[in-house]
């Protein structure tokens, strides 16, 4: 398992890249629509095709993004998983922080600068 280097922050380094290789390779395949469609047809079978370990497979099926990070997922490829599910980066931010998308957006807005119009 990959532990945070600072609170809430997982460093994607060699250890994570080794642990997460198959998971990330599966998510990399989601660049192609035919692969996204194959995943949607049978998610578990698609995970098996890429030899995900049980923890990674469970996290994919449960959309547990934090568990995916802890099991070697890289956000670059997990973003393609999110896209396959039709989720935005704000939706994913909400999932990871235990908030609704609107709450997550409000958190971003609370740090805003330079906007005079909204």
């Amino acid at each position, binding site marked *: 398992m990959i532990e945070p280097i600072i609170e809430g922050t997982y460093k994607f380094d060699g250890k994570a890249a080794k642990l997460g290789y198959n998971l990330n390779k599966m998510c990399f395949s989601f660049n192609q629509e035919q692969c996204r469609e194959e995943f949607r047809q049978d998610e578990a079978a698609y995970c098996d095709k890429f030899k995900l370990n049980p923890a990674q497979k469970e996290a994919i099926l449960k959309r547990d993004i934090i568990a995916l990070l802890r099991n070697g997922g890289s956000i670059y490829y997990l973003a393609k998983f999110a896209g396959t599910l039709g989720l935005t*980066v704000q939706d994913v931010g909400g999932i990871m922080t235990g908030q609704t998308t609107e709450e997550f957006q409000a958190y971003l807005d609370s740090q805003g600068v*330079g*906007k005079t119009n909204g």
Partner: protein
Amino acid sequence: MAKILGAIGTSHVPAIGVAVDRGIEDTPYWKDLFSAYVPVREWINENKPDIAVLFYNDHGLEMFLDKKPTFSIGCADEYQNADEGWGIKPIPPLTGETDLSWHIVNHLIENDFDPTVCQDIKVDHGATVPMSVLYPGHQYRGTKVIPIAINCERHPMPKPSRSYAFGQAIGDAIRSWDSDQTVVVLGTGGLSHQLDGERAGFLNTEFDQMCMDKLVTDPESLTHYTNDQLTEIAGAQGVELAMWLAMRGACSGPVEELVNVLIAPISNTAAGVQLLVPKD
């Protein structure tokens, strides 16, 4: 010899490309950001650089973990882009400039940088979003592009000091190219943001503004950070400051700042827009 006319720092966050696609630049969320590009586009129209040397990072379109270059440089006649898995629309291909690409490669290796040379490479939103926002209507066909990628995904990645020195070597290469063509250097990405983990959504606009100011007056002061420090101060993807440092390294010496705007949030990021021109 070729001349560097200026340097442009810009976000490459995909949402900007989507906003361009949908024609919603004038809506309240986007208006301030796109207003910041108006003088940058005017400068491009007035100066018409022949070539854009574009620093970006690939986010898993072309470069997977199987073979992941630390520094890489495009040496192709054309650069296509493609589906990235979450719905950004491809744009017309970018035109390359292989004579300058190879000149840069030769100069870099003679000066102790050893990039991966890419003769066939797709570019992702890191390159396409800046071109879309700087050239409305995708009117960039008269501008040749050299995409140069810096690994910002998997640690270890280049130290900020190394990305700055890499940019310096590329600037020297451009200025030693026997050509009367003109060049603009683009630094893309950033600024503070964190996409992943329970700390997702973290921004640090105070730090971003300091970085943009220091890029003008004292860029070397920014090269003392480690990537772990940038992660803590500016978020996990705040390490994309690398491309801005490479840009400023290439456009070295005293500069005049024509644009400096920071807008947040833009998607999950703080978005900087900066235009620097060398003081002759």
